[in-house]
């Protein structure tokens, strides 16, 4: 089964995960910038992280024959300090031309604060000025519904943003419809304890259809499963989805969205 992993934090995974993913049929992995589990103390810390995502990690993935792409930003968990965020945003354009950078992400909100909103608007402005794709993180648990609405307000308020060039990630049953109705792509993140399970993600696919939807593991240093996307493909088959339908959601849809970035190529 061929598939794409459009959202995985591989810097926090071991090489066995790369081997398992390639063995399971992964054709490319895309890695959004994220929170390290602690706040970085300087702009230089972000500079080093962006170098890791654009230089070291693609070389590590290449050892297993896996194309590695990334998204760059300052994660919403570090957006509360607006001045510091602006300093980090100032170095971002210097990385956007690197060959594996797909766009700006994962930006968004975490606790739905005023400063997070300001920094989100600045990221959106940066993406618009540099014609970048956007990957949006939506908040966790009790903050998700409100945060998704606030995020949609920001995106719709900027007339330069084309919804078909934006994917809003981590949707669940209470947020997927508002995202799709607004014309954006939606990502379903498959986690063992929070976000979607494979069964619920397939329920959403059955209800809304496969248009503008993709699946991802968002595997990182927390409880997460790097192979959960192909496992969801298997569950789709158990539920009677034809192989072409599985291929569309696991492979063709992410390829369609990501191919809007001319740097995204699959050999």
């Amino acid at each position: 089964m061929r598939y794409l992993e459009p959202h995985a934090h591989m810097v926090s995974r071991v090489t066995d995960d790369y081997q398992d993913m390639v063995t399971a049929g992964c054709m490319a992995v895309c890695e959004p910038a994220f929170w390290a589990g602690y706040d970085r103390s300087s702009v230089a810390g972000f500079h080093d992280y962006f170098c890791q995502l654009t230089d070291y990690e693609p070389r590590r993935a290449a050892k297993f024959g896996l194309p590695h792409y990334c998204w760059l930003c300052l994660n919403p968990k570090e957006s509360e300090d607006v001045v510091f965020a602006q300093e980090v945003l100032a170095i971002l354009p210097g990385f956007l031309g690197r060959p594996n950078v797909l766009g700006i992400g994962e930006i968004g909100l975490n606790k739905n604060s005023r400063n997070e909103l300001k920094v989100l608007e600045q990221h959106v402005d940066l993406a618009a000025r540099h014609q970048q794709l956007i990957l949006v993180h939506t908040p966790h648990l009790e903050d998700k519904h409100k945060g998704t609405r606030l995020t949609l307000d920001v995106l719709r308020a900027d007339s330069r943003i084309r919804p078909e060039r934006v994917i809003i990630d981590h949707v669940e049953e209470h947020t997927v419809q508002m995202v799709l109705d607004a014309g954006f792509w939606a990502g379903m993140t498959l986690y063992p304890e929070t976000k979607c399970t494979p069964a619920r993600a397939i329920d959403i696919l059955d209800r809304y259809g496969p248009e503008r939807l993709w699946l991802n593991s968002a595997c990182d240093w927390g409880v997460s499963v790097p192979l959960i996307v192909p496992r969801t493909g298997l569950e789709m088959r158990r539920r009677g989805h034809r192989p072409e339908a599985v291929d569309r959601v696991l492979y063709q849809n992410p390829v369609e969205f990501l191919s809007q970035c001319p740097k995204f190529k699959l050999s």
Partner: protein
Amino acid sequence: MNREQVLDLYFLDARHKLIELAAFLDRVEHAPGPADFRLVAFQKALDALRRGVGDRAREVLMAFSDPTTEPVPAAPGKGACGAWPGAGAVAG
């Protein structure tokens, strides 16, 4: 899939989760000390589960969600606890 096929595939798993849920509520009830807003939200979600028709997952998620519309003045921390503590409360 027809209903029987859905039951074939998911009944045992759902049964398992339901018993886990019952045991969790017993565990909370038997534990000493006061509960907090999370248990209140949980009961609200259970009501939504019983009430809902065809849209239960959404209704349960909404029972745990922050219903307000304005951004908060400052992030109270980084984490989410799974239930909205209510206006004026702070959850880390």
